[in-house]
């Protein structure tokens, strides 16, 4: 063992060997477990409600109505819709994520989106998985519905996991490159859609969403196309890896 290794070992032991865990650790773990269960139940209920809301247009189409098919992302006051080839996630799925000082330096802004800390992406192979996974925080400007899709050579090699059923297993999931979606439409909260007094966002003016992405190998260059109602489509390219 080299000198620096020995020093490091001694220093670490000296620093923490007397430390004890909090006395209420077990109770805290149980409480956390209960909170998670209740959150999961709420998310499931929200998914059922969303499914029910989606039924009328479908039923109308079956009746031969004139309900149009999937529309491009729109920022109007109409109910948000998924852009073609994407899956919609709405204000009901927003989560609050505190942001570290200087988070902008490691994040990418594109159109109405912030891809928070994406420059620090460290997709990780957990065990012997077929894919690497990393958390992904996406913020979209309030009131805007915009989409983001994988384009170019990375299609099929990088996918989003933003629906509860997609990432229910967290980083431990046995995902394949068929999991998740190639594109997502994010609907920012509006005064009508936000739950009164329950906005979770730590980013003023933006709605925060949390999910994951999976990628078949790192490093990989990935291009995303962003479509929003008020601007031309734009592309960003970044390197996933560490």
């Amino acid at each position, binding site marked *: 063992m080299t000198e620096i290794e020995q*020093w490091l070992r001694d220093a670490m032991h000296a620093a923490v060997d007397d430390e004890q*865990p909090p006395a209420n650790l077990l109770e805290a*773990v149980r409480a*956390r477990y209960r909170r998670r269960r209740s959150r999961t139940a709420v998310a499931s209920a929200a998914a059922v409600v969303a499914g029910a809301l989606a039924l009328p247009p479908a039923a109308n189409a079956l009746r031969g109505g004139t309900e149009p098919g999937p529309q491009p992302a729109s920022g109007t006051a109409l109910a948000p819709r998924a852009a073609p080839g994407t899956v919609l996630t709405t204000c009901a799925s927003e989560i609050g994520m505190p942001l570290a000082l200087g988070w902008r330096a490691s994040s990418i802004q594109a159109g109405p989106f912030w891809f928070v800390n994406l420059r620090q992406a460290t997709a990780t192979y*957990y*065990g012997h*998985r077929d894919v690497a996974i990393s958390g992904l925080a996406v913020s979209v400007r309030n009131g805007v519905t915009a989409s983001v899709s994988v384009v170019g050579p990375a299609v099929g090699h990088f996918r989003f996991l933003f629906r509860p059923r997609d990432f229910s297993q967290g980083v431990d999931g046995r995902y394949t490159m068929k999991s998740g979606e190639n594109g997502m439409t994010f609907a920012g909260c509006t005064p009508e859609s936000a739950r009164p007094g329950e906005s979770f966002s730590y980013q003023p003016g933006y709605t925060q969403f949390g999910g994951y992405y999976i990628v078949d190998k790192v490093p990989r260059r990935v291009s995303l196309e962003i479509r929003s109602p008020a601007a031309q489509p734009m592309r960003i390219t970044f390197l996933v890896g560490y």
Partner: protein
Amino acid sequence: MRTGPGVGVPFEDFVRARSGALFRTALLLTGQDRAEAEDLLQGALERAYRHWGRICRHGDPERYVRRILANASTDRWRRIVRRPEHELPGGGGAVSGDHAGDVADRDYLLRALAGLAPRQRAVLILRYYCDLPEAEVAQALGCSVGTVKSQASRGLARLRQLSGPVTAAPTEGAGR
């Protein structure tokens, strides 16, 4: 009490027996931020609690929880909320032969450790604090043994660089 089918390791007993060691690992992984370490450990144990039966069937639950800890500490979700790194004071660690100097040197080294990239830090902690062999560190972090070796090498080099005065002229306490 939650136990693994046919295994009989109650979760509560495991927590009582092993939470000390796991908490100390969490403390190091979080740069000795006690609140964050508690949160990290709670999260890891909560996840283990959900899958306790399966974990026990596969054997060593501590290895599983340690793996969650290490990966969660490097996960970007944690880095979103992490505090900005503290800058090391200029001039490096003061070198002295007395106890106070020794403590200061250790403190300096640990702060340098906390300033490493999360994955490098995790490799060094698992390797030199938990005394895991390289293969087990690789398994815990989901990477190859080669990656562990290179990350450890780079991490140590960085520590040597950051704490140059400390290791260039070690105090009498060095090499124990």
